[in-house]
């Protein structure tokens, strides 16, 4: 919980990871390239005071995670959104067993979402049934640019992908977090295109589709589909640290999201361990749209409360203390 100026904010960090990118877990050069790319994001977008040495960035472990999020970071509840990246890391990038054990130890603080890959076809579908039971899944994280054999990506509206989504509905998994990446087959088209999200969101209205980093680098395409599909949500991973390096650009992002979507469909996330939540939460509460950018209305305290936690809490049925709830219900 974070308190400022007499207001109490319930904080849900909707996208975190417990990863292992140490050299002994790297399967090939791409494992190093991937974490180096993350490390450049970390250094480029975060304030210098929050930069970690490279060694610390490779792996954090559960104890460090608990401290960064809950002791220092103002976070009340966080959701694991693992990427497997089995083509880059021996034991995967997201550490399933370690993260799940931590979530079992702290069920009031952590929710474990798992991932699937529709290219495993029937065997993956059987696996999903077992995983749903074991992890009591409410959500999954899908990285569509994951490499597998000679395939370097899939679309959400591929036939097998649809079968997985239909099975998710059957198993009560409601929240589908989507992370678009640069590769997909064929390479003829734009891999960041969100047309496949549009297609499945209109076909499976029982599901919530949370598009991570609000569709960046295709903010406009994301906004366009989200305005038409009420079950499409924006995750602020990667977007929110722009508050530091590019505050005017961040004002535009949040202004566009509030214009095209609404304040009930935007979720805070630090994308830990890319960044830590403390400075993000504090700066977001203080954030104001610059006065000269009068094409966007000012951000309200109620909007900030919803974005920082109430929206994701509603999606994941996380109880919110009365002092943090809005006096008026969320309906706009």
């Amino acid at each position, binding site marked *: 919980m974070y308190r400022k100026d007499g207001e109490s904010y319930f904080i849900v960090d909707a996208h975190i990871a417990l990863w292992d990118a140490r050299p002994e877990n790297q399967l090939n050069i791409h494992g190093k390239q991937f974490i180096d790319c993350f490390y450049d994001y970390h250094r480029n977008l975060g304030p210098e005071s929050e930069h970690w040495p490279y060694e610390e960035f490779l792996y954090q472990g559960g104890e460090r995670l608990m401290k960064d999020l809950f002791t220092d970071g103002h976070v009340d509840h966080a959701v694991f959104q693992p990427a497997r990246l089995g083509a880059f890391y021996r034991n995967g990038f997201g550490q399933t067993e370690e993260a799940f054990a931590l979530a079992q130890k702290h069920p009031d603080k952590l929710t474990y979402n798992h991932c699937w890959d529709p290219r495993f076809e029937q065997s993956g579908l059987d696996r999903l049934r077992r995983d749903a039971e074991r992890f009591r899944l409410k959500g999954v994280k899908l990285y569509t640019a994951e490499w597998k054999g000679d395939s*370097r990506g899939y679309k959400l509206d591929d036939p097998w992908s649809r079968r997985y989504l239909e099975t998710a509905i059957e198993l009560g998994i409601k929240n589908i977090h989507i992370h678009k990446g640069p590769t997909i087959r064929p390479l003829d088209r734009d891999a960041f295109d969100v047309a496949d999200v549009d297609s499945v969101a209109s076909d499976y209205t029982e599901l919530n589709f949370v598009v991570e980093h609000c569709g960046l680098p*295709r903010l406009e395409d994301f906004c366009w589909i989200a305005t038409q599909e009420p079950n499409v949500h924006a995750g602020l991973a990667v977007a929110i640290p*722009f508050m530091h390096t*590019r505050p005017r650009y961040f004002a535009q992002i949040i202004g566009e999201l509030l214009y095209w979507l609404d304040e009930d469909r935007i979720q805070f996330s630090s994308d830990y361990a890319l960044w830590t939540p403390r400075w993000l939460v504090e700066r977001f509460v203080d954030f104001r749209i610059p006065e000269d950018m009068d094409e966007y209305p000012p951000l309200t305290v109620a909007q900030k409360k919803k974005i920082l936690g109430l929206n994701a809490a509603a999606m994941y049925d996380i109880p919110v203390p009365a002092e943090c709830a809005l006096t008026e219900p969320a309906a706009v």
Partner: protein
Amino acid sequence: MTVTTSEPLRQRALRALDTVVDPELDEPITDLGFVRSLDLTGDGRVTVHLRLPTSFCSPNFAYLMASDAKDALTALDGVASVEVLLDDHHDSDLINRGLAADAGYRGTFGHEAEQDLEELRLTFRRKAHIAATDRALGRLLRAAPNTPGQELYGLVLGDLPDGPATRALLRRRAALGLGTDPADFVLVDEDGARVPPDGIPARLRFAHSVRVSIEGNVHFCRGLLRTRYPDEADAASGRTLLPLLTADASAPSSPAPKENAS
């Protein structure tokens, strides 16, 4: 044997590289700092190294820029051979082999390629056009924010003030095969059809989002490139990369639309 002195060829080679645009960012690769080095020999052999903000930049765009660079340099008089090498990318080996063999997009990417990258180019030319419309009309609309759609419907290119934003719009229109005559209507869709008056406000609002998106990506990519290659001056052109803006960028200086020579 005629020897072309390397100085003029160097200038011509740089100008040729100025014409190569990152389709996604709609800016020349030379301005973006993507040209790491340009080396020439007295007998006309040209070697260019390209670099990108991350190892995981989209391979299709990476290939497009590298192959466009090779084409632009090969077309120059006095050039005997061209080698373009993409550094530090997850597909460097694949793309560099394809470029060396002039294998084309399909030859380079094999089963991952179905047809060609023309639709990808077109998608981004359309985005560049709609963002340029926002820039060109921005000043006009800020001066008179309540201009009715009906009035904008009749707006022709000749009504726009002569300036970099208008010239940039004309270039984006030409790239799409749209008219650039002063009597041509400003508000047309990507196929040249006029946007009806009641569709104009939504069209302009979307144009603004496209512009925000593209300009944001440009700043992100510039910043990441500088983080990735902190010690390298922009060797090829002698121009330095734009400085990374820091927390104090709240001064209303930031995403000033950058006009370029594409």
